[in-house]
């Protein structure tokens, strides 16, 4: 059957339109339903650690100096090929900052000196209600069922809307090609390219191989990682026993990094 150019263009246009609109409508009515559910059989290791809701606790009583934190930061950055770029265009997955910066709404004039001068770890909070996921125009940032907020660096267009959306300053952008800034490239984790956003992923690559996050592993018990939905898990037990803080709770993002006080 012959098809002239006009008919072809009409049909092509309409099917494209229907495809785009249909997808959009589906997303609006049933968010996430079209997201590629992780296939049960493909690429999963039998030893994979799973949880309904991953969460991290940071014991600020055990971590009191930058030196105590440094092992965790190094483990994270070395393992994930995080480049050392000097200046304000740097890349950070896990770092420390002062109490008044990490908890700006909690600080007042009479905070004890010990706490005032103590560094606190900062990282992606893997929020339950993550603004970065909401604003991302390509689903390059998405939340997994187990609560991990993930980055697809091959999908990211580098619009940096997630950086504007994140109220915790947890995201870095590759202003430069990161590779020349990596001292020793770890061949087991991808280096990133220029022009994409990146951040902490709760070591989902390690969880898939049955290992806990690198920072937790080397923290000598100062960090705890586990399933918040499991009543008997260590994270739940410790949260029952100790008082904890979350960053900027008033914003309603429900961070899943808890600071034990």
């Amino acid at each position: 059957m012959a098809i002239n150019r006009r008919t072809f263009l009409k049909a092509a246009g309409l099917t494209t339109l229907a495809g785009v609109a249909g997808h959009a409508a589906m997303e609006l009515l049933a968010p996430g339903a079209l997201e590629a559910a992780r296939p049960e059989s493909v690429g999963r290791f039998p030893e994979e650690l799973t949880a309904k809701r991953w969460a991290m606790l940071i014991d600020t009583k055990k971590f009191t100096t930058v030196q105590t934190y440094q092992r965790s930061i190094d483990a994270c950055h070395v393992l994930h090929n995080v480049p050392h770029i000097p200046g304000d265009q740097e890349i950070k997955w896990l770092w420390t900052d002062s109490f008044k910066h990490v908890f700006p709404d909690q600080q007042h004039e009479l905070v004890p000196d010990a706490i005032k001068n103590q560094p606190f770890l900062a990282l992606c909070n893997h929020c339950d209600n993550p603004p970065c996921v909401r604003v991302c125009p390509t689903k390059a940032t998405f939340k997994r069922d187990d609560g991990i907020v993930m980055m697809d660096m091959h999908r990211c267009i580098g619009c940096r809307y997630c950086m504007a959306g994140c109220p915790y300053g947890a995201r870095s952008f590759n202003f430069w090609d990161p590779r020349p800034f990596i001292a020793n490239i770890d061949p087991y984790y991808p280096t990133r390219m220029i022009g994409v956003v990146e951040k902490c992923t709760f070591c989902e690559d390690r969880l898939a191989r049955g290992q806990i996050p690198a920072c937790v592993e080397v923290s000598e018990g100062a960090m705890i990682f586990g399933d918040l939905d499991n009543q008997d898990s260590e994270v739940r037990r410790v949260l029952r026993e100790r008082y904890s803080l979350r960053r900027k709770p008033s914003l309603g993002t429900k961070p899943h990094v808890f600071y034990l006080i």
Partner: protein
Amino acid sequence: MLEKALQGNKAYWGWIFTLLVAIGIGFGFYVVQLQQGLGVTGLNRDVSWGLYIGQLTYMVGIAASAVMLVLPYYLHNYKAFGKLVIFGEFLAVSAVIVCLLFVVVDLGQPQRLMNVVLHPTPNSVLFWDMVVLNGYLFLNIIIGWAVLHAVKKGVRPASWLKILIYVSIPWAVSIHTVTAFLYAGLPGRYFWHDSLLAASFLTGAFAAGPALLLLILMIVQKVSDLKIPKEAIQTLTKIITYAWAINLFMLLLKIFSAYYSQYPAKMATFDYLFGGVGGEQMMPWMWNFVFLSVVSLVLLVIPSTRNNPITMTIALVMVVFAGWIDKGLSLVIGGFIPNPFKVHTEYWPTIPEFFITVGVYAVGLLILTILYKVALAVQRENAS
């Protein structure tokens, strides 16, 4: 009809050549940015949007302002705007193209741009901004071109065009509303998190847009046989006056709610912008903004200065420039300062960033020049 843009005197070709040179320089710097990354800009981890996204915000307003001509002409049958509507629509076309180009030059991975279409994400305001901006672009191209064709043939515009024109009116409002939602919907960015933002975007646009259009038309009047009806100028300057007054009023509302409540997060960006707390880079610009805003408002409110061509022109230039400081500079940059850690990291555009910006504007001016050239030629033929 486009061939009409190929006839012109020496001055016309000199102007076109100047624009091409500016585009060439901008493109050269863009190639450098593509190869080396956005590291060549002044952007950083804390201020992740800057000059480019500021220009997007400002030019969306310029595009939306076309409705200030379309609405009175088509909805209220206000004849004085008859000959000018096409120029408003063509300004909108070039302004939207400039907006889209600023999005592209701001991307870290521009070759993945189509991901926004391939993976439509209705929960992202950026997706909707793409939809409304492209929609408005096509609406104005179709409307402007079809109306011009009708004028050329000396017939009444087709009736289907009326529907598109009516659609374009709320659509103009939508482009600036959705662009405001890009900012207003973010938690923890207190300077932006403001339900008034879309409304103040529109009032600022309805002042700066028509002001820029009038200034451009006055230049066109000098170099061609276009005659702007006196009544049209008077009506437009009144629109500018009211819009500008409301825009400044809304700014005062924000300042009141921040400072009377003494809410630190709400005061922080104002402290930085106007008080130089944590860095003085923006302070001189902001006080210039205050000066330009107040003086232009006074000049516009007093009838004798509003109707005097010289003082009116001064006021229009001031409104355009003040509007630019407000949206093109302070809104986007200020929103990131201080950062989520209450740390002040400053930002200032670099030389590549500046020339890429100039280049994008030159593309817009080139498109505007060609469209205006065609429109003027058609109108002249029709009149003779």
